């Protein structure tokens, strides 16, 4: 292995320009994927913060019995996808109304009775933020004796979830397209690097070098090229992130797991592309 590593490093040193250009091409290809990841990640974060606001409000009847309230709470809390159910009494409802709408404060003193109903607000777990789960909760709430009316902004929720599906689908298609283009570019870059050394491969075969001895340095070289490309891509993506963050608007950096995945992808592509290219030239002798 030490010999393989030494061979790979010495061959990279022999043609530093080619190795550098290959790494740069790999880096640029993965940079496109990095930018796409940055945009996708931030769109997902934006969408998630909106999705957190998805809630179902069950307005309760006046003169509610405690036993019905307890039953309603228990029923709703045990439904799949529900994160929490919070009870707001009539005085709390009035208090919130006054806080949110100052003009109500002016007329509230004239009110003979509190017109705001008590309510149960249902919030959802991230995996429970689907049309089906929300509608199941609404249907369950409507059957409860304590509940008089249920509101959840059906149209808004449906649009939000539709937007998420479209976003996910578009991200998948674009992601696959970018990854394919990156794969082709990386493959070409490394094949050019191997092509430039096809005469070496030929002579190795000619004089009786074992396949493994020919293969391993090229695979390691491909891995190093892919790794350098991955590092360059992360650097370019980070610089872009910093520029946007400083000059335009706040932008979250991509999760570290994505960064490792990018590096791993670079290395993997490097190895696979080298393998394919070397295999081709090995067949010639």
């Amino acid at each position, binding site marked *: 292995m030490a010999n393989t590593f030494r061979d790979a490093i010495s061959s990279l040193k022999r043609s530093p320009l080619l190795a550098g250009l290959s790494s740069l091409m790999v880096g640029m290809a993965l940079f496109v994927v990095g930018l796409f990841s940055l945009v996708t990640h931030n769109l997902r974060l934006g969408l998630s913060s909106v999705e957190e606001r998805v809630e179902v409000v069950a307005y309760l009847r006046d003169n509610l019995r405690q036993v019905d309230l307890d039953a309603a709470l228990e029923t709703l809390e045990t439904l799949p996808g529900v994160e929490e159910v919070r009870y707001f009494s009539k005085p709390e409802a009035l208090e919130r109304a006054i806080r949110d709408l100052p003009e109500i404060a002016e007329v509230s003193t004239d009110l003979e009775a509190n017109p705001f109903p008590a309510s149960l607000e249902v919030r959802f777990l991230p995996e429970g933020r689907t049309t089906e789960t929300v509608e199941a909760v609404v249907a369950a709430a409507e059957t409860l004796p304590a509940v008089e009316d249920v509101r959840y902004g059906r149209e808004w929720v449906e649009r939000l979830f539709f937007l998420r599906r479209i976003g996910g689908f578009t991200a998948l298609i674009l992601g696959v397209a970018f990854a394919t283009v990156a794969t082709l570019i990386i493959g070409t870059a490394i094949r050019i690097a191997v092509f430039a050394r096809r*005469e*070496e491969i*030929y*002579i*190795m*075969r*000619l*004089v*009786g*070098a*074992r*396949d493994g*001895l*020919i293969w391993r340095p090229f695979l390691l070289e491909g891995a190093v090229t892919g790794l350098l490309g991955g590092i360059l891509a992360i650097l370019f993506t980070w610089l872009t992130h910093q520029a946007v963050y400083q000059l335009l608007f706040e932008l979250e950096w991509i999760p570290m797991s994505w960064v490792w995945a990018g590096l791993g992808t670079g290395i993997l592509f490097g190895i696979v592309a080298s393998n394919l290219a070397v295999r081709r030239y090995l067949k010639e*002798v």
Partner: protein
Amino acid sequence: MIKLLNVTKEFPRTGPALTGVSLHVPKGAFVFLTGHSGSGKTTTLRLIHMSDRPTDGEVRVSGFSSIRTSRREVWKVRRRVGFVFQDFRLLPGRSALDNVAFALEVTGTNKQEIRPRAQRLLSQVGLAVKSGSQIHELSGGEQQRVAIARALASEPLVLLADEPTGNLDERATRGIMDLFWEINAMGMAVLMATHDLELIRTYPGARVLELDQGELVYDSSQKPGSG
């Protein structure tokens, strides 16, 4: 040491290159393989080197059979068979010493031994003083000497040469031929493909095989009264 047993080689696009060729090259022989362009000389050498496999028949080289030797084992054959080309096939941008050292390195020679051995091989082919020269600084004859030194790196039993003097002038040709004879005198078989009949006539002691349209039509060792 080298046996071709009823060997036929056909290529998908161009058809048969060799048809039913049988021949035997014993240890230490010096053999010219002649014939017109396209007669099958290069194909024969490639089959012996196991760069190609016969469509039919069998090639045996130093105990290895083309039928039983897998692609993964072919390196064992290549270390017993040196190969020299008309166009030298040296690595440009490297010195003569580096070209020979490369062959030693990739065939697993101990690191400490590589450069002294490469230097000895270059001395053997008469290029000791030019070992540090870059390939482009050498003449055609000198480049062919480097290629021969490289071919000798694995201490083969036979040296295959495909038109090795085709790109050389008369003087360089004579020098290279003398070198081949010296190598042969040390016990290594030499099988040289050439269409240069004048060259063959200059060395009457060598055995001559002639191919014509893929068939072996002449073997000087089969002549009445000859070896």
